[in-house]
């Protein structure tokens, strides 16, 4: 299943996420309702603390909303058990982060293989799946290298390969170019664009770079103070 009846891959309905900080209640995400269609490349734009990463984590199933509902392919994440949420993170979504989050003691190959281990994919099938993902990000020559032996751009591509290896339908990227120089960042975004077009994968990318969002995304959702303040389609 890639989309629901209304055509959305992921949909939030009046989602809120609040934290208690001392006596104050902080509303990181405040009553946000959005629908992201299948195969769409969406940029979540906003300044620091606007709630965009929190919303992305809610979509990823890394966090639970305080209220409201989040549907991924029609299933409400807010009502899922922690076991089902783990399955959602493993099979339905792939994630890339600003800090790459590769395990430093593992080689590139082992890092990319990790989601396959968690999904209990047969050993015989793993090598082929890893090679396929690594070739897609053009990193096949670096299979035996550890993250410390890779450049920033290569590390992010490795993280991208790891996110793709389990063939998810949704790719969630949290500031994927935040730690990269401009050219390398552009290369990563081109890669995301290529994946979106060739694989038809839904992409939600958190960024604070309006120019890049405008250049690569089909649609820009802007957040401020936890609220969705604009939802603009790109031409």
């Amino acid at each position: 299943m890639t989309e629901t009846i209304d055509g959305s891959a992921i949909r939030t309905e009046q989602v809120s996420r609040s934290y208690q900080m001392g006596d104050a209640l902080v509303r990181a995400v405040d009553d946000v309702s959005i629908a992201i269609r299948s195969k769409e490349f969406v940029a979540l734009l906003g300044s620091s603390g606007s709630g965009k990463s929190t919303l992305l984590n809610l979509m990823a199933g890394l966090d639970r909303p305080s209220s409201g509902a989040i549907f991924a392919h029609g299933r409400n994440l807010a009502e899922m058990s922690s076991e089902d949420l783990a399955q959602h993170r493993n099979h339905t979504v792939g994630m890339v982060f600003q800090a790459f989050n590769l395990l430093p003691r593992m080689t590139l190959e082992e890092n990319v293989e990790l989601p396959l281990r968690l999904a209990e994919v047969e050993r015989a099938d793993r090598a082929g799946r890893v090679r396929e993902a690594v070739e897609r990000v053009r990193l096949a020559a670096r299979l035996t290298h550890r993250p410390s032996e890779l450049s920033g751009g290569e590390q992010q591509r490795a993280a991208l390969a790891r996110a793709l290896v389990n063939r998810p339908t949704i790719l969630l990227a949290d500031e994927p170019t935040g730690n990269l120089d401009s050219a390398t960042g552009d290369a990563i975004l081109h890669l995301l664009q290529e994946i979106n077009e060739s694989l038809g994968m839904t992409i939600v990318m958190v960024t604070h770079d309006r120019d890049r969002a405008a250049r690569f995304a089909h649609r820009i959702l802007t957040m401020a103070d936890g609220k969705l303040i604009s939802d603009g389609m790109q031409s």
Partner: protein
Amino acid sequence: MKARDLTELAGRNLREALLRNSLTTLGIAVGVASLVAMLSLGVGLQQLASKRLSRSGLFDAVFVSSRVNRGFGRPSRPDSTAGSAKALDPEARQKIAGLQDVVEVYPEIRFPTEIQFEGKPFPTTVAGIPSSAKTDGAFEGMKGAFFSGLDVDEAILQIEFAKDLSTQPDSLIGKELKLRYAERQPLPPEPSAAKTKAGTRGSSSQAEQGDLSPGFSIVPHEKTFRIVGIVETEPATGFGGFGRGRLLIPLQVAESLRIAQANDLREILRGTASKPSYDSLTVRVKGPSQVKSVEDAIQGMGFTTFSLLDATKSLRQVFAVFDLLLGIFGSLALAVASLGIINTLVMAILERRREIGILKALGAADRDIRRLFFAEAGVMGLVGGILGVALGWFIGSALTFGTNVYLRRQELPPIDLSSIPWWMVAGAIGFSIAVSLAAGIYPASRAAKLNPVEALRYE
């Protein structure tokens, strides 16, 4: 996650903090070693005691006496009727030998006498040794050999007696000695002459009552024996046999000598001198578990019996308590080691917080994280257990070695002070893994509950 992947990841994680994890594992190993060393000492001592006791031949034996004696030096009951009591004679011996589970039945033959060796007289005590003694361990490690047959004129010397005979006891093997003894010979039945030939009979006043059987004469005899062995301990052959003879000869030969013994005089008074009877018989059964049934059967035949079965039961109880106490003391070190595991794994959670977050982001369930930490604790327990058993064996061997050095200086035979049976190896490793897993419960559940968003933020 599959078990193989889990184990691989756990092994990889353990190798990452090699020094810390090695020290923790060493802590477990020391704990297991102390447990194994203590228990092996307990088991070793128990085996040693059991072996020594079984060598005494007392625990698979029933000692039988006639109810006339009420047995073993105790006074007769006022109501005892000597006349109605069954005699412990060759016929009774044969019947007892025919009972189920009875290996052999033999009388106690032990008498003080004198031997001639190289022209010199030596007073000593001679004991008849049954053929079964060869296999019951009493003669284990003896110099020379056991008797070559049941009715051979061969002798085994107890080491102290051998030292009396020669300053080089080993050189005695193969030499001959002459045994001088008093043989009991029956008198021909001469009722008319009985009253006058009272030299070896009861008093004339008793004889005049006319109800006494003929007595016997005592004739000095000599017989040559070849020394075939020298034994360190003094093997027991019957209930009265603690600290037995110093010169040992085959029981069958001893019986054929018809030695005059102390109870012969009593038999004259009872009028049973013409018919040989035994003071007591030793009945050897197949094993300690058969002692009770054989004892009951013999009692049913009208004889008094005695066995040391109850003594073995209480001995086993004492050793069970002893082992338990040693096990508890040994486990204390393992309990301390388990705190080390908790500490190491809690530290690992702090250090690997971000890694746990990444694993969760990639789809690891709480269960996977919990199992990963459990696997790490289990691997430490397994490795620590194996090392601990090896270390415990080494400690036990060192204690045995040290003890044997001391015993050798005291000119005593060596012993196995510690013993590590397979059940102890498996049990110690299993216990080590169980303790490690128990110690891993808290860290594992703490790691599993980590909030992935917070964990990913952790630098």
